[in-house]
């Protein structure tokens, strides 16, 4: 056991766990933040995506010791009221079916629209192809990412 300190959704967080424990299980089991999902355990499906220092990262293969001193954002930290541009777009397009993969989809999309102001379909495919959805919401995801990019631009006050 060892204490690991990092910033989680804007607040300082210290956990005392086995350093090799993946961040996914620290979030879900130790901290009770179950919005981040377990899907494969091998960085193959994207259900566990979180942001570490702003970068979309697979928490299922990220040892908690490696996030010491870093900033972690989970789906719970994206907004407190579904006001993030990606969440708004996901609601507008009614993307989720079962919804299990959607935390990971949304975190990946949020990272995309944060750095790419007007993503093309191929930008979206490239950024999102690591996120599996067995319900087949891909067409709605494409539509929602375009919408999210527009909301993001509006939020920044920049008209396109």
């Amino acid at each position: 056991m060892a204490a690991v300190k990092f910033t989680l959704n804007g607040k300082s967080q210290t956990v005392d766990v086995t350093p090799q424990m993946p961040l996914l299980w620290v979030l879900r089991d130790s901290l009770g933040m179950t919005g981040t999902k377990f899907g494969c355990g091998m960085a193959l499906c994207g259900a566990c995506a979180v942001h570490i220092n702003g970068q979309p990262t697979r928490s299922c293969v990220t040892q908690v010791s490696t996030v010491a001193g870093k900033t972690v954002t989970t789906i719970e930290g994206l907004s407190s009221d579904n006001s993030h541009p990606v969440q708004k777009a996901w609601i507008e397009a009614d993307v989720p079916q079962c919804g299990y993969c959607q935390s990971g989809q949304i975190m990946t999309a949020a990272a995309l629209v944060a750095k790419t102001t007007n993503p093309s379909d191929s930008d979206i495919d490239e950024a999102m192809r690591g996120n599996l959805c067995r319900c087949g919401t891909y067409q709605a995801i494409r539509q929602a990412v375009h919408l999210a990019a527009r909301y993001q631009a509006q939020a920044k006050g920049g008209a396109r």
Partner: protein
Amino acid sequence: MKSLTNVNRRSFLKTGAAVGGGLLVGFQLPVRGQAQTAGPIKFNAFVKVGTDDTVTFEIHKSEMGQGTVTSLSQLLAEELECDWKKIRTEFPGVEPVYGAPMMGAYGSLSIRTSWQPLRQAGAAAREMLIQAAAQQWKVDKSQCRAENNTVVNTATNARLTYGALAEAAAKLPAPTGITLKTAAQYKVIGTSPKRLDTPAKVNGSIGFGLDVRRPGMLYASLERCPVFEGKVASFDATKAMAVPGVRKVVQISNGVAVIADNTWSAMEGRKALVIKWDEGKWANVSTPGLRQEWAGLAAKPGMSMRKAGDAAGAFAGAAKKVEAVYEAPYLSHAPMEPLNATVEVRPDGCDIWVSSQIQSLAQQTAAMVTGLPANKCLVHTQYLGGGFGRRGGADYVTEAVEIAKAMSPTPVKLTWTREDDLQHDTYRPASYVKFSGGLDAQGSPVSFSARVVCPPFGGNGTAVEGIQDMHYAIPNVAVEFTAPDTGTPVSYWRSVGYSQNTYFMEAFLDEMAAAAGADPVEFRRKLLAGTPRLLNVLNLVAEKSDWGKPLPAGRFRGVGVVANIGSFNAQVAEVSVTQGKVKVHRVVCAVDCGQVINPAIIEAQIQSGIVYGMSTVTKLGITLDKGRVVQKNFNNYDPIRIDEMPVVEVHIVPSRENPGGIGEASTPSIVPAVVNAVYAATKKRVRMLPIKAADLV
């Protein structure tokens, strides 16, 4: 437990309509006299109204993405005349009124079995609210009308909210002889309000089975024999117990479980187990061996499943003959949420928190394992992170209850890994089919024969549906079936037998069309006059896909149709094939599922079923080697991803027929639509899935 599961599901599937009728009676059971605690007041099994003016609906069909939370609410809201924004939903426990002893969501039956009783439940509650308002105003209830969570006095325009009326109204007797609205009066049915569960699905708060947390809960991971039906011979837990966080190691009927302070410790402890297995009689099973064995079975006559005229005689005398063998592999369901269940066993009762498609089976297995009466085993239904038929079984619940019983009274959550999921599924069966078809000199089919070798479950029908019930008017037909002996567990997989047999049937029919020199759509049209709704979707998809008109260079079309789950579906796929690699660019789908409840959900389900089916064309297959499943995770069982998603266009036939199913409507016919397009592109027949690029170059 597998045999119990299958027997129960089979018997239910045959009596689904009867259970729907049970609901009708059940919701009228009196609830008067029942102690009301704070919170919404119960009107009947499906409707509660709060004094705060909220309306709570009991959603008895599990939500796994197919939209029951929203679409069942629409059925209730249509008649209740409530405010859509004031609706709350919850999942009720297992009760006869909800379909027990087979309460669940399966067979694309949720809308079909809820269509009448839920509208009646909504109407009954509305009439009670109107009656209460009439009594308060001391007027005849004909002077009152319900709208938008209020009752209006049409003479005075006075209004009372549902919340204000709830307490008085719930005490009234449930009315009988209610006349439901006609289709022309629908305001909610046939529209697409936003899905009620979306907001909680975009912020991580929705609550799947895997998200359940109980005070003092421990976490389990279970090592099972890699060979089906194998048993533990002996094990050594010393190293596992040394892993930090591991609390206990227990043997259960299906393997050795490690129980720990968190999921990861349980998984790490499990890796440290040393187990000697008695692998049993299936330890030498391999996919090549099975194929060889099944080919031998297909050479011999099977059990007759459909016979008309003299297929063998007509084939012998046919002007043109077509013969082909088709094969499909075992498939895993692979829902995104790995299987799991959280269980607490106490001397006086048992609680099961689970994302289950058939809550009754979860309850029954808990009662069997614990010895408690079923009514002391309470199932708390969670949202399902995908089902596709996998969560209709209760094998994972049985495991969790056995572990929790050993740890009683501590609650334990059992979590399957993805490897567990792919290697210990109850699979869509593999199948081997030998076809022959005869045509006369004019190119009209005179005979059709199919010999199916496929492990059945829940009755032999699941092995042959999609071929046995094919709708083409061919005078001489023989469908035979042989069940091979195999230890691989098989069960319901989205669209069941239609998932492989529609591929076989529609691809072989394309071969017959080609032998006749006929256009594939035209060939089908001539044979479908007896099934007008299927013919209609074929004609619609041909029109909407511009069938017969030129395509961009390198693109080719294929068609497939199916009639299943009370609905009718036709698809045209546009594909290109480059160096053996198949790309699906566009899919046009026409569907007739009777009365539409929510067109947006129908469109989403069509897209969903297409993705689910398309993944099996080029990518997915479960193979066996030395009795073990070869595929381990999404690296070698890799469903289609967003960059492989075609543009999907959905055309819904307007209809006032009773609703059909939708969840399994589009999975079957995408497969032949794609492989028939591949034939158009390459002149190579795809007779085995998944397609390998080498087969097409």
